[in-house]
């Protein structure tokens, strides 16, 4: 595998990881919003990553 190709693959993986982390952060934020609205849902809250 050439150095250029490795660079492209690495950047693609980094972009995918960034998207994943952003999605997690968004769902955590939403869960906090739901919690702040006073809703009582079952369990420890959707989007909670304590598991």
């Amino acid at each position, binding site marked *: *595998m*050439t*150095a250029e*190709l*490795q*660079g492209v*693959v*690495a*950047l693609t*993986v*980094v972009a995918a*990881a*960034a998207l*994943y*982390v952003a999605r*997690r952060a968004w769902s*955590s934020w939403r*869960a*906090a919003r739901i*919690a*702040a*609205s*006073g*809703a*009582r849902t*079952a*369990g*420890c*809250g959707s989007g*909670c*990553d*304590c*598991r």
Partner: protein
Amino acid sequence: MTATTSAATHLRLDVARVAAPQALRVALVGNPNAGKSTLFNALTGMQAHVANFPGVTVEHAEGAYVHGETAVTLIDLPGTYSTAPQSPDEEIALDVLTGRHRGVRAADVIVVVVDATNLERNLFFATQVVDLGRPTVIALNRMDRAAAEGTRIDVPELIHELGVVVVPVTATKGQGVDRLRHAIARATALPPAPSRIGLGDETNVERRYAWISGIVERCVARQPAKPRTASDRVDAWLLHRVWGLAAFLLVLLLVFQAMFTGARPLTDGIESLVGLASTLVTTALPPGDLRSLLVDGVLAGVGSVLVFLPQIAILFLFIGLLEDSGYMARAAFVMDRYLRPLGLQGRSFIPLVSGYACAVPGIMATRTIQQREERLATIMVVPLMSCSARLPVYALLIAAFVPAVTVGFVGLQSLTMLGMYLLGTGAALAVAALFRRTLLRSDTRALIIELPPYSVPSARVLVTSASQRVRIFLRRAGTVIFSISILLWALAHYPRPRAEGMPVTAEQQLSQSALGRIGHAIEPAVRPLGYDWKIGVSLVASFAAREVFVSTMGTIYSASSDDGTTALVQRLRAERDPHTNRLAYTPLIAIGLMVFYVFALMCTSTVAITVRETGGGWRGARWAALQFGYLLALAYGAAFVVYRAGLALGFGGGA
């Protein structure tokens, strides 16, 4: 020790809803510790965690089974002493029972679990439920234990007295469970029992007790009490005001010793596997970004966290063992004496101990505390109990900077770990006392707690519970920590410094990368604590999750090293300050850093659950902000004091 309640508690909450909407809805209710969760598992065949102390079931869980042609949805509700709720979890139970819980249909059949070894007290709530006039079945649980104690219950007479079906069962052995399923399926076809005593005022309470005494007199024959059981003799020691506390501390010490000595071979094994994987990737790929990403990012980051998996598994095995053996309720009883002067009571102890696993179930378990001020004070301090996410941080720093020598028969490393747990616990108690004397003043209620008989925990249940935690940890390592490691690698590698003919060292590359620049910007804020920019960056990254501190250090040290094979512990020990050439990390800095982690609230899930459990909305957000703020101030202040005091006393140590 969580957990008490644990961690496993909220694992149990996402039991799948499998039954069809037209299924018979059956609610399982009863006093705390009557064996509801065990019976729930026996009826549905599910593997749920069972702990024998009050407050385990903080929300309701659902399961399903089919009996003959009847599909049944079974709802396991929190333990309740009467139909007049005293605490938030009792309120949930009664709301679900009567159909007032939002989005939950009222139960078609109510199964009241009654502990046969404690009939008189359990019948108070059972008869109240019968008086609701709904189809009801009574499951008379722990018949084996009642028989062993020499208690004989005349079940036909009990049926006659109560006017509802009573089925004797022993849930732990599955005895009578089929008959109970049959009775549940037929319950709606039977006429409701007549209401003997109305629900309501004090007079009714007295009349109910009088009626129950009569029932017990007619239905129960007891052999004369045995002098002193083995359980009584053990309790004389474990509940003693001095020996009880000593025993509790000894138990904690044993747990930490086991975590260090027992986990070592497995930890070494995982470390070797990660090293082997790095070598394989290095051999298979030519030098380049992808190889660096895999070795310096993924394997260094995720691998440095994975090595703590055995210690986490051992911690949870012990937590399960203490819960299921019946010891945890005794520990709560012993601690009640010490908590009372601080304005808390033994009931706060279970949420606090739950915090050793994870603050989220710990905060949820405060619902068993009836008084608002006491509950809020407990919620505010639960995050001070060292949760399992801090374990990798402590373990890394202790392995790197605390010598592996023994003091008496105990390892110094285990003692240091115990010290961190005790520091968190002591701080939690002190802060709770402060809250109870200022913002949250009120009288402390007396503790009424049931001490379950000692029992030998089931190995299967223990292993299942620990393996659930291991899976959670692996999932985090494979998702959050994996992704953050990749991002940190990218921040540590880009932008590339201009080469201009000269070869760039790994250290220069890291220093000029985005991560290096962020670190240098943070450095002034962490310098007073003795930390360099690398620790500063790792601290900031670990606000996402505490374990990320370890993976960030793994990535940074992998990126800054031209030889990618040395373990993180060795790199930390050998790291030198580029300006002074003295050792960058000393035992003093490591202790200060651990103290920071003992106090700091670096967990978004905990913040979210605090908002919800303190009332939601702005009210909840204010409590959560206060919690986050005071813990951060405490962490910074304590780490500063430790570092400065250590320097003043000559413990700087960097040669």
